[in-house]
């Protein structure tokens, strides 16, 4: 650019050249020319000073921390997606889950269906259709639906950006909502009674509703036209319950009539009356009299059984010892525990219309006059010590593999947490004590939380965490054991190696006679406690660290 000054025409530094000069991008000869010109030209010096200040303004403005970095970004560490390795791992896990379902879970589900659960999976039934929800009044039902809606909105809001890209989330959320919508609705009305010393429905009195009762002694002499949910010390039913009976009690006596199913977890159960459908009981001592009648099947997990009266369908029992006196309309399937040495007795008045299958350490004593429709199938299982059983090794190999898989996933996803958890395990005393406490307190707290709608969101994850820790708490202890033997781990793969070694030792220890259980239990509790301790510490409020600093000051 050329202009006129009091001294005559001067070739000024143009703006591009000026910019290149202040940014150190000019070649040496050109830069020397600019320097020479600047020595005698005030306007150009002023221009270049202004450009420098503009550069500083730009740098300052662009690098200024004007807003916080999203917490999601600071917390996450995205991975490039599924690799073939992971796909293989997931495929193997899926095959393992399928195998476990087919060989271990499904037979139990079939048994439960036989006992009157109508094809619903126990857990679903328990949480969505069972004691916690059924029978709540309309207002609570409305709150539930509202809560589900709010939860769905919150989830949609949280995942709104992911939903744009990842259709699987959409599918998952849609499925979740469908499940929520498909969940059976609550009963029309109900009566809640709690914290009473005793509660009684008198003879001639009729309750046209479900009844929830928590009391020391409960007595039903009248009629309950609905289900009865009872947590008490003693439950006596002399009257009539038209629905199901759910009882958590020390002693239960049913001398009256129950039209639906009876499901109990208790110490003593005596049945003198009639049950219209099926019976499921986890009980120490079970007794039915000759007047008793169960129209459906009975599934019992019982220490001692005295079975009399009539049973319309099958008897499935896992028992210690017992006597069968009565009439059984269906099959008998009995599995006697290995540690029990008193034989099952089938008396001369017993009658079984279906098959008779028995599995146990010693054969049952079947009276010659007993009426069995078919030849009994008796399988005597005399199990050697655990360390001599092939199944024990297979089981331990399965647990070893599953734990290693879970450990691998955890090490890959949360290596920092794993390191910290292993450090906590090394303190031994505190995590072990806390593990024992948490092992007992967590399920209680979770169940209490589940009583309220709001608490469901906390209670259910807590239950899952508890179950997870029971099975996989040993992962943390295993890494620690591995590190004790071959030294501290320095990376993910070395940690995995120590995990594999530690797990192997723990599983071998679990096979030892007498101490095997305690090895397993101790490892689980150590890991349980360590993770609880760690989570507790991490959830404590801390002074937030500033986000990562900005880029350095710009080059002038």
């Amino acid at each position, binding site marked *: 650019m050329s202009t006129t000054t009091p001294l005559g025409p001067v070739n000024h530094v143009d703006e591009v050249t000026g910019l290149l000069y202040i940014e150190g991008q000019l070649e040496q000869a050109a830069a020397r020319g600019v320097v020479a010109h600047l020595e005698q030209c005030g306007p150009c010096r002023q221009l270049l000073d202004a450009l420098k200040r503009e550069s500083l303004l730009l740098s300052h403005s662009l690098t200024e921390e004007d*807003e916080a970095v999203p917490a999601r970004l600071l917390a996450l560490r995205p991975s490039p997606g599924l690799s073939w390795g992971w796909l293989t791992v997931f495929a193997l896990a899926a095959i393992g889950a399928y195998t476990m379902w087919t060989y271990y879970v499904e037979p139990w589900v079939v048994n439960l269906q036989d006992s009157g659960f109508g094809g619903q999976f126990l857990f679903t039934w328990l949480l969505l259709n069972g004691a916690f929800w059924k029978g709540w009044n309309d207002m609570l039902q409305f709150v539930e639906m509202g809560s589900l809606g709010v939860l769905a909105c919150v989830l949609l809001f949280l995942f709104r950006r992911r939903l744009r890209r990842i259709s699987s989330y959409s599918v998952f959320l849609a499925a979740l909502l469908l499940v929520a919508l498909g969940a059976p609705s609550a009963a029309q009305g109900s009566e809640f009674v709690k914290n009473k010393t005793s509660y009684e429905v008198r003879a001639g009195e009729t309750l046209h509703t479900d009844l929830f009762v928590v009391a020391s002694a409960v007595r039903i002499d009248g009629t309950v036209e609905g289900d009865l949910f009872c947590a008490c010390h003693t439950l006596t039913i002399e009257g009539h319950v038209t629905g199901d009976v759910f009882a958590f009690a020390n002693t239960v006596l049913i001398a009256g009539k129950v039209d639906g199913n009876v499901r109990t977890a208790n110490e003593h159960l005596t049945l003198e009356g009639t049950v219209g459908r099926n019976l499921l009981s986890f009980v120490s001592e079970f007794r039915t009299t000759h007047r008793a009648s169960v129209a459906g099947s009975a599934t019992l997990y019982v220490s001692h059984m005295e079975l009399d009266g009539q049973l319309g369908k099958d008897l499935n029992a896992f028992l210690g010892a017992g006597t069968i006196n009565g009439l059984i309309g269906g099959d008998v399937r009995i599995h006697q525990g290995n540690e029990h040495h008193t034989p099952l007795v089938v008396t001369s008045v017993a009658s079984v219309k279906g098959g008779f299958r028995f599995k146990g350490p010693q054969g049952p004593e079947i009276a010659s006059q007993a009426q069995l429709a078919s030849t009994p199938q008796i399988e005597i299982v005399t199990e050697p010590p655990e360390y001599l059983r092939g199944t024990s090794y297979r089981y331990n190999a399965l647990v070893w593999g599953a734990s290693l898989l879970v450990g691998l996933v955890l090490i890959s996803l949360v290596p920092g947490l794993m390191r910290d958890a292993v450090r906590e395990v090394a303190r031994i005393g505190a995590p072990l004590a806390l593990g024992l406490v948490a092992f007992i307190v967590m399920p209680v707290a979770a169940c209490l939380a589940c009583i309220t709608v709001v608490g469901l969101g906390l209670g259910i994850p807590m239950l899952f965490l508890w179950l997870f820790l029971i099975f996989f708490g040993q992962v943390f202890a295993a890494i620690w054991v591995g590190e004790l033997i071959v030294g501290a781990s320095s990376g993910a793969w070395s940690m995995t190696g120590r995990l594999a070694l530690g797990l192997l030792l723990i599983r071998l220890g679990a096979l030892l006679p007498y101490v095997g259980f305690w090895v397993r239990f101790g490892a689980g509790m150590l890991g349980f406690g360590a993770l609880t301790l760690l989570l507790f510490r991490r959830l404590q409020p801390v002074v937030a660290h500033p986000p990562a600093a900005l880029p350095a000051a710009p080059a002038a």
Partner: protein
Amino acid sequence: MKEKGNPEGMGGDELAATVARSRAGDPEAWGDLYRQFAAPLFRFCRRVLPTREDAEDAAMDVFVKLRSKLVQYDPERPFTAWLYKVAANHCWDVLRRRKIRQNLETEEVDSLPLEHPDPGQLDWMITQQTGSGVRQALARLSDRSRMALVLRYYAEMSYDEIADALGLRRAFVGVVLLRARHELREVLAKPAGAPPEAAAARGAR
């Protein structure tokens, strides 16, 4: 020695070692890199893209790309420049997909002569500006101008690196930067809502 654009405590050697371990598949090293660059990279995206949500998404996506491309990284080159180049390319693609990118994506650089500024007036204008005012004005610039300024004054990339990232000849980088400054001055001199003349003129063509 710290690498430029690498703000935190990690020195050049340490960064190089971390990158090398990460390339070898060490997840902890990758975690260190992530923690090191999550905030700067988010701010880079925030400066270039229109909304905070876009920047957050872009930063996540860039990290995913970085991890998968890490094996292609040439350790002889500065890591941060490579990182910001990947980020710039990604943000460039985001803008193009949204079809809000203007016709500045060609390699052609506008050769219209720029009006020579009055140094006194320029000086006065600079003293009147605040950081937030400049950032708001930056959002109204054409994409290439905004990207050029961010690459130079945020990511501190060299002219060669900017030329590489923007697909320009190196000789044009100074011109692009100066034109961006002129656009910015126009926006700063005008009330919000009015498009800068240069951008408007290019949009009309």
